[in-house]
């Protein structure tokens, strides 16, 4: 295991990202010390490296990563993992609005609660939130899955087109084009396997209480549903 440490103190976001990208090809793990909630950490990182941020990150941590595994030992600001195509972003604390905005693939895990618009315009991939998720979670979601272990706030799944939002707690209200369905037993098994893999150990009763939010229609605004092959 080749490990490399970078002290972010006194560095700008650009200088830090330059140092990360320089170190990534030659190391298995990079540790960022004193991140001090800096914005844009690991932006555009395309190496399959493990990046440990030893503290909180600011806005857009892990934006546009492809293959990197980013672990944040603190909180994150708005839009963590924005537009990630492949990889993993794990946040031990809480996060702000737009977690996993527009992701094409990969997995985002937030251990505590998050802000609003979680998974907006996401196309694929997985977002797991250990706590609650706010207003308009899954806004214009176009694929993938969001798993909220706590409660989901107003207008959940607003204008959802494809994909699934699994909710373990209360659903305050649904957005346009969203409806609630019960889970198949097979889906509960898939959830259990996925969540156990990320150290979420839930009681069986919790799995029985999960519900999912899915689209009412794949073409809610214009066109014919038959164009979607249905």
């Amino acid at each position: 295991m080749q490990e490399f440490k970078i002290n972010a103190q006194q560095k700008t976001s650009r200088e830090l990202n330059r140092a990360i990208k320089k170190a990534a090809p030659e190391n298995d793990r990079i540790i960022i010390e004193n991140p001090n909630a800096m914005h844009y950490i690991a932006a555009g990182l395309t190496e399959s490296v493990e990046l440990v941020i030893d503290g909180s990150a600011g806005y857009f941590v892990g934006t546009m990563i492809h293959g990197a595994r980013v672990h944040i030992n603190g909180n994150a600001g708005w839009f963590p993992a924005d537009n990630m195509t492949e990889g993993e972003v794990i946040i031990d604390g809480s996060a702000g609005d737009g977690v996993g905005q527009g992701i094409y693939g990969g997995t985002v895990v937030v251990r505590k609660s998050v802000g609003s618009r979680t998974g907006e315009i996401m196309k694929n991939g997985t977002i797991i939130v250990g706590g609650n998720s706010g207003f308009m979670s899954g806004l214009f979601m176009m694929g993938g899955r969001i798993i909220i272990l706590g409660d989901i706030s107003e207008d959940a799944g607003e204008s959802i087109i494809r994909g699934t939002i699994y909710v373990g707690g209360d659903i305050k209200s649904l957005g346009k084009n969203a409806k609630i369905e019960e889970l198949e037993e097979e889906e509960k098994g898939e959830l259990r396997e996925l969540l156990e893999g990320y150290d979420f150990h839930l009681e069986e009763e919790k799995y029985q209480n999960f519900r999912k939010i899915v689209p009412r229609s794949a073409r809610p605004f214009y066109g014919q549903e038959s164009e979607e092959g249905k």
Partner: protein
Amino acid sequence: MCGIAGVVFKDKKLHPVGKFMTRMLDALQHRGPDSAGFALYGGLGLREHEYLLNIEVKEKPGLLENVKSTVNTAFQIESEEIIPSVENYIIYRCKVNLESFSQLKPLIMDVDKIEDVIVLNGAHSFEMIKDVGLVKDIAARYNTEDKMGTHAIGHTRFSTESIVDRYHAHPFQSYIIPDITVVHNGQITNYWKIRDPLERKGHIFETDNDTECIVHYIADKLSQNYSLEEALEQSVKDMDGPFSYIVGTPNGVGIAKDQLGLRPGVMAENDEVFAIASEEVALREVMDTSDIEQISPGETRAYTI
């Protein structure tokens, strides 16, 4: 964008609040480079009817004397200080003794009539420091880090709604009731709908800046015996647009966020401190932030001492 921050020391004792707010705003400097400002509460130590005026005066022969004469004609100047010029303007600070708060706004309007002079603010329980430029430069010019107090709000400005100058730097103040200040990140899109009824009630607007509209609105509600929490809750229902703003009062601070949650707001709290800001990076300057909370769309938070 713009950065906003607020902090309250819960024990009501004096703390180096200027130093803490300088750090918070410096951490938010990237959100706005145009100007910055502070409202530092609790450290002025003025007697009951004493008020501190901050007046911007162009460096022109005889103009400062004219200002002093105008103030002195109405009320005696008890003490004075001059912050040196950076752009052919000085800041003249003077302390006056009024018979009542209701005399403050008329005095300010009289001084404002002098050409090339503008009163930045008049206050009893807080010190207003605001200027164009970067947080650290402003803090150095005004010795902000030496200022003590119980609580404070602050702002780093990215101008979108009006010109960049000292007067339009935040905080904005209302004289409807004493010592209400606001710092703001965003836009109020139903500005005129909010402003019109306030003007019909006689409240005087000095600018077309939407932040001034917020501070008058909140002050008007407080004058009707709304609590700070109630005023903030009602403001979120009445105001449209993307916004988050922080209100400072003689007794505390509060934050409100628009119902679509289009502007950021986070808070953290422990036994000693209540802090709110645009981003965690500012909260970290005053406390351990292992647990921070996102302010939800349409939500308000406040802490009074």
